[in-house]
């Protein structure tokens, strides 16, 4: 059935053109950026030979160094917190007794996925101003944590739903208290989901621009903000080099997340 559908689709006139068009639109810019990050000259249209010079420049740039540290600190703390909260939420939602308004809570947890990001960004900004927290690293961390929860929640709860409750019953039956049952049985069995969720949250936090731009105070510039700032001043292949590095980091983390999430499904 499925194969038949795919076959028919392939025979659709223009199928190949559209597919290639989409792929080019999606990936050509990334390929161009990556290739020209190794360009020896300043041009972003003419190839002047291979060089790692722009990478050397990136690593020597104190502003980028600071932004990288900021980005990592924020991504690590926000994704850790988000994963922790998502784990608790998943256990309550999947394992807890059904309660009134459960669907409502599900929507609430996943709201950041549905709401336009700019709205979340403005909302967060207004909230921080209203309660009088001055903008800085802290506010970015808080906003990212909230925003990352659904990304961590989805793989974790999917994993948990796939684990029958017999295992926890067996643990309790064999004299484990609630904590031991989680610690020795449920948590190890959920680990692929947890790691996968963590990595997804990490990448989302690392790449985020809109919310960060809104709630980052002075001294809380992250890599995406730094790149944006540089682009506004004037485009240099240095930007290509940072972008390529970030792309690489994202690819590695997403691939790992996918691979880990896939292992031991049964």
């Amino acid at each position: 059935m499925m194969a038949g559908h795919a076959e028919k689709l392939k025979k659709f006139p223009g199928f190949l053109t559209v597919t290639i068009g989409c792929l080019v639109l999606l990936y050509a810019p990334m390929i161009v950026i990556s290739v020209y990050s190794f360009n020896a000259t300043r041009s972003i249209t003419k190839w002047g030979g291979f060089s790692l010079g722009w990478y050397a420049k990136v690593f020597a740039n104190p502003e980028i160094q600071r932004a990288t540290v900021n980005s990592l600190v924020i991504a690590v703390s926000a994704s850790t917190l988000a994963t922790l909260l998502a784990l608790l939420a998943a256990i309550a939602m999947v394992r807890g007794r059904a309660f009134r308004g459960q669907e409502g809570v599900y929507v609430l947890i996943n709201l950041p996925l549905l709401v336009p990001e700019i709205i979340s960004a403005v909302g967060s900004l207004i909230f921080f101003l209203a309660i009088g927290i001055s903008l800085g690293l802290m506010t970015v961390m808080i906003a990212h944590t909230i925003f990352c929860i659904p990304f961590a929640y989805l793989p974790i709860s999917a994993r948990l739903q796939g684990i029958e409750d017999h295992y926890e019953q067996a643990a309790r039956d064999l004299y484990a208290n609630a904590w031991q049952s989680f610690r020795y049985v449920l948590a190890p069995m959920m680990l692929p989901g947890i790691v996968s969720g963590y990595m997804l949250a990490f990448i989302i936090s690392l790449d985020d621009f809109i919310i960060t731009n809104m709630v980052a105070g002075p001294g809380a510039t992250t890599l995406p903000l730094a790149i944006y700032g540089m682009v506004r001043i004037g485009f240099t292949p240095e930007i290509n080099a940072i972008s390529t590095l970030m792309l690489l980091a994202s690819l590695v983390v997403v691939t790992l997340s996918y691979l880990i999430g896939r292992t031991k499904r049964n």
Partner: protein
Amino acid sequence: MSQPPSVQRTAICIDKVCKVYGPPDSGVVALHEVDLTIYDNEFFTLLGPSGCGKTTLLHLIAGFEDVTAGTIRLFGKDIVSLPPNKRPINTVFQHYALFPHMSVLENVAFGLKMKSVAADTAQARAQEMLELVQLQQFSHRMPNELSGGQQQRVAVARALAPHPKVLLLDEPLSALDLKLRQSMRDELKRIQKTTGITFIFVTHDQEEALTLSDRIAVIESGEIQQVAVPKELYEAPRNRFVAKFIGDVNLIDIEIDDMTDNGLVRVRTKSGDLIEAVPNGSGHKCGPGHVAIRPERLNVTRKGGDGILTGRVRELIYLGTDTQIIVETEGSYELTVRVQNAHQSHVDVSPGDIVHLRPDAGTVQLLAD
């Protein structure tokens, strides 16, 4: 296999236990007032069709579910308010529920580890349990590297390792193929004998129940229908459900005529034959009722008369060791007769013949409903 002596200690006493899933007034009633006494060292079986509440009863005993009403006592101590980890009862799950991230040995030692038994003692004891189920050479395998039968035995070893007072087994053999099921049956019986632990075994397979159990409780729609030793359950079923659920049976609509002097009840079938039935308990009044007769308890005779059922042979079915004779009676009910082929003379009838059937003495059971 005989009735446990009355001096035997009670392991589990289930007293007026009810279980309702969901809101008490509108939920699913899984168990109505169940009363049950299970003795120490007994191989006790809960037998019943799918959805009758067997798993529910096990879960209440293990503590995975709370009772809606009633009490459960373990050696006299009320356990209903204890969480599962505080009950000295272990479970063998239907789908084993072996921890997939632990080796066989770690699985078996898990209960001991949670009970804070010293690591080396726990290891030694786990190894001992693996020997009991003949899997000592597999201790370092992971559960997914074992066959279904081996996983089953690990599950038994894991549940036995902490020395529970009672072992619960929820249809432990249902996932195995026929051959393996038969050998695991013997193995379970042997383990129960060696350890002397009380087994509460759940199954919907009547043959499994009859061959394994000291006593059997038949459950239907959340109610206990009869508790008896296998022989009694087969030969003296209390009601129509039990009679039909265990083995093949002829159920006959009758009118109760009167009592005889020897304690039997004279009953009249729809075709007017008069036979004597063993009353089930007391309190039978004149009026309509049912009797049960096993097909192998009917004998083909040439003469009619008192205490004999009469009909016309409709069909002969050859079953290898037995032949089944379907007899139509005037009362428009059918009787199934089973004769062993070793007794050639008895099968000497053909379709259309009028036959007379004499039940063995004391094998016609007057049912309670």
